[in-house]
């Protein structure tokens, strides 16, 4: 658990540094930003692998466990649909600063939102591959496919093709946007970003490098867009963390954490070695 907290903290610090580098005198320093992006990436990997490894271990240890209850109940509450995502976004409370700008950005195109779901799931798959956790894949595949409407698939696919820069599994768009939805549910007060976190999450990898490219161009307006992107991705990850313990059944959330803690030992050495 503490690794996740630590990774989370390091990620927020790194993002702050990247943001501040925009306003530094003398322009963006490529070397420093490269190092910061490497740290950010490492922390993100630890943070996400920690999250998913925890989910996997819970599933392994308790097939009828509360983890499943959460997913089932959440699935009921938030049937994965594009319109639902839109609604979630629109019911979001207005938050200061960049919020209006981003909402405009996000509502501009419905397709963008749809692709969010796909990207989210694809990222989920990427994480699955990375951590080789079969059970998580099982979780995904057990989602009733009928909950995803057919027509959505084609725009999603095309959106995937154009958006994903990281190698994805073959656009299985029937994956549930459950994590995406979870992240939309809970929004802590300090987060001022809206919820297209998964999409932006996949973009982080490219955005990091993209920022280096921006560094070459030294184009501060593009960098400011990237910073908002970083910000939103970060908020998505943060929401993801808070989604779990703040799940519908508080007890089950607690038990999940405990389970994760119990099973953390074999993984902790891996993380320490990292």
């Amino acid at each position, binding site marked *: 658990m503490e690794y996740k907290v630590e990774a989370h903290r390091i990620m927020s610090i790194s993002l702050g540094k990247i943001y501040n580098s925009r306003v530094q005198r003398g322009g963006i320093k*490529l070397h420093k930003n490269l190092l910061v992006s490497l740290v950010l990436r490492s922390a993100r990997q630890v943070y996400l692998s920690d999250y998913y490894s925890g989910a996997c271990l819970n599933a392994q240890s308790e097939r009828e466990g509360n983890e499943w209850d959460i997913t089932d109940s959440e699935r009921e509450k938030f049937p994965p649909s594009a319109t639902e995502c839109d609604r979630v976004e629109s019911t979001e409370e207005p938050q200061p600063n960049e919020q209006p700008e981003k909402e405009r950005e996000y509502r501009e195109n419905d397709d963008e939102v749809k692709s969010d779901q796909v990207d989210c799931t694809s990222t989920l798959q990427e994480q699955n591959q990375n951590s080789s956790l079969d059970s998580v894949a099982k979780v995904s595949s057990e989602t009733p496919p009928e909950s995803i409407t057919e027509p959505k698939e084609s725009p999603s696919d095309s959106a995937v093709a154009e958006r994903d820069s990281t190698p994805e599994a073959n656009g299985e768009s029937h994956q549930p946007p459950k994590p995406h939805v979870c992240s939309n549910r809970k929004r802590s007060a300090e987060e001022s970003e809206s919820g297209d976190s998964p999409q932006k999450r996949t973009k982080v990898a490219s955005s990091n*490098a*993209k920022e*280096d490219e921006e560094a070459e161009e030294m*184009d501060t307006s593009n960098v400011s867009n990237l910073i908002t992107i970083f910000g939103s991705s970060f908020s998505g990850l943060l929401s993801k963390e808070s989604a779990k313990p703040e799940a519908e059944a508080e007890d089950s959330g607690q038990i999940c954490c405990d389970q994760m803690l119990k099973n953390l030992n074999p993984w902790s050495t891996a993380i320490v070695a990292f």
Partner: protein
Amino acid sequence: MMAGVGGGNDFQWCFSQVKGAIDEDVAEADIISTVEFNCSGELLATGDKGGRVVIFQREQESKNRLLSRGEYNVYSTFQSHEPEFDYLKSLEIEEKINKIRWLPQQNAAHFLLSANDKTIKLWKISERDKRAEGYNLKDEDGRLRDQFRITTLRVPVLMPMDLMVEASPRRIFANAHTYHINSISVNSDYETYLSADDLRINLWHLEITDRSFNIVDIKPANMEELTEVITAAECHPHQCNVFVYSSSKGTIRLCDMRAAALCDRHSKFFEEPEDPSSRSFFSEIISSISDVKFSHSGRYMMTRDYLSVKVWDLNMENRPVETYQVHEYLRSKLCSLYENDCIFDKFECCWNGSDSAIMTGSYNNFFRMFDRNTRRDITLEASRENSKPRAMLKPRKVCTGGKRKKDEISVDSLDFNKKILHTAWHPKENVIAVAATNNLYIFQDKIN
């Protein structure tokens, strides 16, 4: 005076001088950003964040005070670089002097190269101590004389005047670097020099300013694939075809300019395998090399990363021959150092004249010296409290845990704002210059 045999501990380092304001409130422009002795050690140049260069000259040794060698006094001060604005990219270019390198002296004048992030300038520093007097057409004030008053012709005579030191920019090497220049190095042929930025290294001829040869280019076709940058570069002290450059991944590449016009393929690749047990979030940052320096002999080179100094034998690529821990106690504090940006500090390192000792800086105004022969090391502090003339410096010790002895300082009490990034060792004698923020300390070895 011959350089002492042996290293740090055989010497008794004494305070000699300190230059700079005493004021606690440090102006950013006064922060020293580079220190360099010239080839004879007679001159000591500093550059600061305000774009100024100050040159100190050693006074002739006086017969009366045999115990102290000549002191360094201000010789010349000039504004080398000004802040600029790149209108195309909407970027301000800092005037901070990143590096100064002296050219070998070939006549009465002295030449040095100074570089900021984008531009390198060749400065000529010359003395004027005579003035012509007795002009025919103008009088002493400079006013033109009434021509009808001129009845005789006279030859002007050179009269002595107060010494005036003039600095004039002789060459400006600009527009060759997209990224920030981190190094310049004069070649042993005394005709060319190289300049390195984050992704490219250029070779210049000292006489030609409108073009340079690009000899290393590590910019990937797709910037998203960028994984490392160039952090330092230096020409070999004797072989004018050889240079090295270090990277942010902790590797050093040695290149031979005879092999190809573009030296993207290295001749030698120096890398030490990483110790997997010490892996952390910050492993990559602390392995980034901040400085690389050839030994005077040309047989070794030294690299500085965040926590250590390594000496490499040019004939052995797979690991350094010597590793010295500068401040290993910081390894457990890397997260805090990342937060306060100290982990990005770029420490330099330097050899003594005989290559028997090396020196580098640390925090709390501490600096460290390592004797390569005896393997002993010493930690000293540059502070105004130890600044009585010829006062001997007391070795300092950082307490890493457990009971703190008297005179030790605990890791948590270290002042991370007081960092010594730039040090220089006189090429022939045991005189060192240490830059502590806006102050320049000069220490000498007490004559045994």
